[in-house]
């Protein structure tokens, strides 16, 4: 059975520019019913149809899980990405009909935690918008440390400060403000869980320091929000379905496979859930692995690829699809 999610027919109910880089999109159900309930940290996959082409990108739900009249996502414009965020910024208008997936949560709160310590970098703030709303409603104990480039690019920093006051601490790169990570991690009460979402460098830094300071791995939660990266075009043979396809510069391998009418399972489309893992039958060239699912050993073996985020450069690639 396919592990893809059920789809929701929605209409864009509002488009709100938040700052120079980020725009917020609101979705309601076309039939006027309530949307499915979700939990803080969940994402939806947004289908972006542009002419012949369909891009599917995951975005964290950032509204309160208590309000299911609408879903809201925030999209940071990426001028050198594959064009998904540019499409959202330029082409999506209020009233447009779109399709999003049911919510999926791969960055769930551990409800056993005595305290939730959250670290956000840049647009990595979005899952914490929903998680803090959920915890605040239940009287949960949380503390959020949020790093942004400048005050004007501190997406929702003002909203969060107003809602949660001293539970939110802001750090601005341009003022050379830095999280005192070691001190922060060394002074938490027992039973604290740590959550980090932001650029890969930040996630790696926080995980490394937490491990060095003796935090058990089960208490450290993280979500990479890297979208698939563009790259050189390449050709792929799909052995099971007997098709040869071309992956364009701006297309992910998974999107190219789907465009050929083959539907591998997927959930996150960000290289973390493992659903679209695909066996390599043969290859002559070099893999560009961008996922967080396969082990380093598997990356080196050349026997597996995560087509949602990873690419290939070389003469030939045959996949078991």
């Amino acid at each position, binding site marked *: *059975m396919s592990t893809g999610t059920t789809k929701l027919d929605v209409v864009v109910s509002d488009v709100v520019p938040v700052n120079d880089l980020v725009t917020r999109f609101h979705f309601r159900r076309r039939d006027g019913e309530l949307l*499915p309930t*979700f*939990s803080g*940290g*969940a994402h939806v996959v947004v289908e972006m149809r542009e002419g012949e082409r369909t891009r599917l990108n995951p975005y964290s739900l950032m509204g309160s899980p208590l309000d299911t009249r609408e879903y809201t996502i925030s999209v940071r414009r990426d001028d050198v990405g594959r064009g998904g965020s540019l499409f959202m910024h330029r082409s999506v208008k209020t009233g447009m009909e779109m399709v999003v997936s049911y919510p999926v949560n791969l960055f*769930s709160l551990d*409800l*056993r935690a005595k305290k939730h310590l959250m670290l956000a970098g840049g647009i990595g703030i979005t899952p914490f918008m929903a998680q803090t709303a*959920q915890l605040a409603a239940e009287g949960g104990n949380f503390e959020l440390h949020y790093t942004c480039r400048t005050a004007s690019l501190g997406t929702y920093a003002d909203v969060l400060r107003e809602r949660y006051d001293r539970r939110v601490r802001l750090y601005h790169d341009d003022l050379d403000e830095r999280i005192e990570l070691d001190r922060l991690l060394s002074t938490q009460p027992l039973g604290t869980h740590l959550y980090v979402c932001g650029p890969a460098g930040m996630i790696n830094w926080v995980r490394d320091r937490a491990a060095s300071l003796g935090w058990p791995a089960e208490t450290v939660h993280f979500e990479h929000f890297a979208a698939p990266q563009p790259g050189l075009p390449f050709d792929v043979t799909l052995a099971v379905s007997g098709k040869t396809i071309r992956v364009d510069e701006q297309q992910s391998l998974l999107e190219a496979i789907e465009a050929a009418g083959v539907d591998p399972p997927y959930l996150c489309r960000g290289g973390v859930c493992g659903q679209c893992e695909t066996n390599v039958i043969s290859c002559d060239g070099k893999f560009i692995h961008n996922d967080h699912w396969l082990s380093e050993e598997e990356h080196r073996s050349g026997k597996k690829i995560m087509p949602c985020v990873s690419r290939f450069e070389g003469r030939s690639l045959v996949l078991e699809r």
Partner: protein
Amino acid sequence: MGITFRKETFRDDFTFKNSPEHIRRFPFPFHEDAYMYAVNIEPHVVGPRGSVLENLIDVDEHYVAEMQDRALVLAEDPLRCQSLPHMTLAGWDLLELLMEQQALGYPEHFTLTRDGDRWRWINRPLGIDDTFTFGDTSTLPYGPMEYITRQSQGDFCILDQRDGNLWMDAGMVTTQADWSLDFDIGMNFFEWHAPVPLAHEKGIFVRALKFLTNIQQGKPARRLNWTMTINPRLDTSPENYHKWGPDRATVTPENVGDKVHLRVELQSFWRLPRSNGIVFPIRCYLIKMDELATQPKWARRLHRVIRDLPDELANYKGLTRYRPALVEWLSKLDDGSATSQGFGPD
């Protein structure tokens, strides 16, 4: 037209039985003349009218009697219902799921009205009409999981998902096939399945866990499991082994038809939206051999399955002691002719 609920017992005088319509809707678990473990999981979607899959949460003629039996079990042993402190939110998720599904499938018996977080729940078969605040435990007579599972057939395990595993952190378990919530509470998926023979070697649990941790909201899944029980006793728990264990020595060639029951579990798996947990309802269906034999295909097939079952499985399911008498009894109903494809009766 509503369901006519039977007055019957699952203990002492054992007056439980299935009406002829209920015999035909029994979820017979064997699609071929042999049985071996498989990851027999499929999407939990609505099935044919008149089957146990007509609604995703099935309510049948045994509902009232089963709820009375559950209340008796809980009065004797409150530890059959447990919920670790972090599982309350999942309990509300389950309350919503069961109220919605029962009201949807059986509007003549159940009604749910919502006005924001003020909810009114009417359960006519049990004479309940409660108004409460969703999310506020103080407005219900029990915790949310206990409240709704005292009104829902089947056992319920709520599994917390974390660290790539599932944890048995809450449940209502009174109709179980010889396992104990009190023993398993807090265990992970591999720990609580440790006693199952053969399946580990086949890597079944690794694959099953991978599947279950990826169950998505709005896409529940199901599987059937089975065992056998002497007398129509719902509560065959380790805690009460002294009550039902000796029953297995009472089977004689003369009483097989009345005493030996096929016990089928319809297990389903649902992602819970607020807690991101999984609920695992285990719904038990019982049918005595005399009732099963009214469908000749089922009797022929069951004979072949029990006769050829590997000894490890027969032992695990507790059939060893009365298996010869059962096989002998069933053999008289097996003329050797072929059985048709599929689960259903001819």
